[in-house]
C-alpha cells in the first residue's frame, strides 16, 4: 500500500515536472499516467500491491472530486439572466456528445469486424 502510493506520487511528480519543463497544455497527473503505463508495458505485469491500491483509489474517485465540485456554490450568481442557455448547453450538449461518440464507436467497430 505505502510502496504503491509512493510509486503513484512519484509518477505524478515526474508528470508535473515534465509538464512544467516543456510547457505542455495537459495536466501533470495525465502525463504521470502515460509514464506509469509505459513502465507497466516495460515490466510486463502489474505488481499486486499497485493493483490493490489503484482499485481502492479508483473506487473512491467520486469522493476525491467532491471538494473541487463544491466550488459550484461560487458560481450560482453567474447563472442569473442566462440560466436557460447555460443549463440547456450543459445537459443537451452532453447528451448529444455521449450519443454521437457511442454510436460512432459502435459503427466503426462493427465495420472493422465485417470488412
Amino acid at each position, binding site marked *: 500500500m505505502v510502496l504503491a502510493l509512493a510509486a503513484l506520487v512519484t509518477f505524478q511528480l515526474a508528470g508535473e515536472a515534465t509538464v512544467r519543463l516543456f510547457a505542455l497544455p495537459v495536466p501533470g*497527473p495525465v502525463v504521470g499516467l502515460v509514464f506509469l503505463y509505459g513502465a507497466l508495458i516495460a515490466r510486463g505485469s*502489474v505488481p499486486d500491491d499497485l493493483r490493490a491500491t489503484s482499485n481502492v483509489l479508483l473506487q473512491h474517485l467520486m469522493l476525491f472530486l467532491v471538494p473541487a465540485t463544491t466550488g459550484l456554490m461560487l458560481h450560482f450568481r453567474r447563472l442569473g439572466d442566462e440560466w436557460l*442557455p*447555460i443549463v440547456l*448547453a450543459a445537459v443537451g450538449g452532453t447528451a448529444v*456528445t*455521449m450519443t*454521437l461518440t*457511442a454510436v460512432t464507436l459502435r459503427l466503426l467497430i462493427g465495420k472493422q469486424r465485417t470488412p
Partner: protein
Amino acid sequence: MISGCRELCAFLQTSPLLWLAVTLLAYQIAYAIYLRSGRNPLVNPVLGSISIIITVLLATRTPYRTYFDGAGLVHFLIGPATVAMAVPLYTHTARLKKVLLPLAGSLFVGSGTAVVSAVAIGWLFGASTDTLLSLTPKSTTMPIAMGITEKIGGSPSLTSLMVTMTGISGAIMARGLLKLLRIDDLAIGGFAVGVSAHAIGTAYALQLGEVAGAFSALGMGLNGVATTILVPLLMRFVANR
C-alpha cells in the same frame, strides 16, 4: 467554559479536521443513499455530497475558500488516482489495440460534437459571446478547461460552472441514455462517458467495472488533448470568416 469554547472555535478554524470530517461524512451519507437506491444514477453521490456540504457552508456562513483549504487532503488524491488509471488501461491493452482506429474516429466525432453542440445550443437560446466562448471546453477536465478558456478569452468562473454541470449531468444520464441507444458493450459506453463527461463521468464509469472505467479514463484523457488542439483551430476558422 466560554473560554474553552473560544479555544475550540480557534482550533476548528485553523485545523483542517472539521471540513475533512464534513466531507467524509457527507460522502458516506450520499453513498449510503446511492447504495440504498440500488445504485440509481439519479442519486449521484457527488451531487448528494455537494448538496449536503453547500447547505452546511451556507448555514454556517463559511466561505468556500475556508472549506477547500480544510478538505485539501481529499482533493489532493485526484492526482495519484489519475495516475492509477494506468492500471486498468494496461490490463485492457489487448482490447484497446484491437479498436485503436475506431477509437480515434469516434474521438474526432465526439470532441467536435462536444464543442459545436454546446455553442450551437447556447447561441440558439440567446447566450452572449462571452458565455459562448466559456462553453467550448466544457467536456474536458477542470484544469484543461481552465487553460483553454483563458487562452481564448472566456470566463473561468462560467467555464468551471459548465464543466461541473456537464460532469454531473453526464454521470446521471449515462445509464439511461446508453440503454436507450442499446449500447451494451461497456468499452463503448465507457469511452463515450469519458469523452462527454470527463472525470465525474469516469468516476461513475469506474463503479460499473474495470472495462468501463478503463475506456472512460482513455476517453477523458484523449478528449482533453483533442479539445486543447481543436478549440483554438475552430476559433481561427470562425475568425477568418
